[in-house]
């Protein structure tokens, strides 16, 4: 069943991908980054989280990475693409590991995903923007705490949404057998 490229699978991917991109778009409308630059709620991540739990790892990775490509073309540009791509990649890998581990609930997985997303973005940003290590040190001490806390808050929010969605939306595939 998994990984089979039948029409249903492709249609499903397209639908979920458009949902994730829409979530990213909605996010650009919310001016959270007035208070602290670079802070986003990461609403798209609750879509990814939902996909990870309901449809599995492969589809989650696929949609997560494709989403960053599309949003880069639509809203953010090449610089932001490097950050969001690396962030998305690391967070989805980590979330998958934690999910399989099963000592964490969806909340822990989401928090870890949110924070790791932020940290990877920060690392990528400091590699792109500075030639030496001093810039990284600067970012680490001043910006990192903010990003950790923001990642946790966003992670909780996304877990709440995704958890509710998983409970309320019936799993059609299970019903079919």
């Amino acid at each position, binding site marked *: 069943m998994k990984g089979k490229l039948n029409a249903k699978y492709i249609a499903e991917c397209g639908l979920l991908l458009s949902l994730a991109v829409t979530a990213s778009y909605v996010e650009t409308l919310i001016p959270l980054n007035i208070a602290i630059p670079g802070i986003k709620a990461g609403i798209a991540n609750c879509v990814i989280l939902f996909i990870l739990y309901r449809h599995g790892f492969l589809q989650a990775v696929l949609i997560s990475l494709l989403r960053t490509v599309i949003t880069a073309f639509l809203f953010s540009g090449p610089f932001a693409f490097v950050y969001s791509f690396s962030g998305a990649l690391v967070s989805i890998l980590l979330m998958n590991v934690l999910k399989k581990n099963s000592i*964490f*609930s969806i909340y*822990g997985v989401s928090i870890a995903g949110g924070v790791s997303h932020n940290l990877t973005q920060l690392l990528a940003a400091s590699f792109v*923007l500075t*030639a030496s290590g001093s810039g990284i040190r600067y970012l680490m*001490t001043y910006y990192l705490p903010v990003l950790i806390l923001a990642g946790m808050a966003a992670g909780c929010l996304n877990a709440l949404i995704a958890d509710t969605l998983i409970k309320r939306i019936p799993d059609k595939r299970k019903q079919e057998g």
Partner: protein
Amino acid sequence: MKKLPVKKADIILAAFLCLAAFLLLLVGGIQGRHQDALWVRGYLDGKCVCEYPIDCDIKTTIRTPDQNGSNVLVIDQKKVYIASADCPGQDCVKMGIITKSGEELICLPHKLVIRIEGGDNAIDAISQ
């Protein structure tokens, strides 16, 4: 409303992250008193195209796509200058060395401005 399915490990993770953030804030607060980081930013036609901390030693070429020009920016022991450029006037090279926050090197033909900026709003340019 049903109880949230939070597990013990979730809370431990959250607590650990809170602690890490708090410690980092503390470290940042201590360092911040005697370290006011300066940044060197390059603006092409008003848009920020590059950014370096002033205490890095680099030599980099900034290209201006529309005029087909290039300026070689050097940061060497907190001294910032244009080493060479292919603009007609060479004014940016003649401007010499800048070291303090707010100082600028300007190359008019290439619409390039190199400015040293204080560490206060260094994050703004990164999140763009």
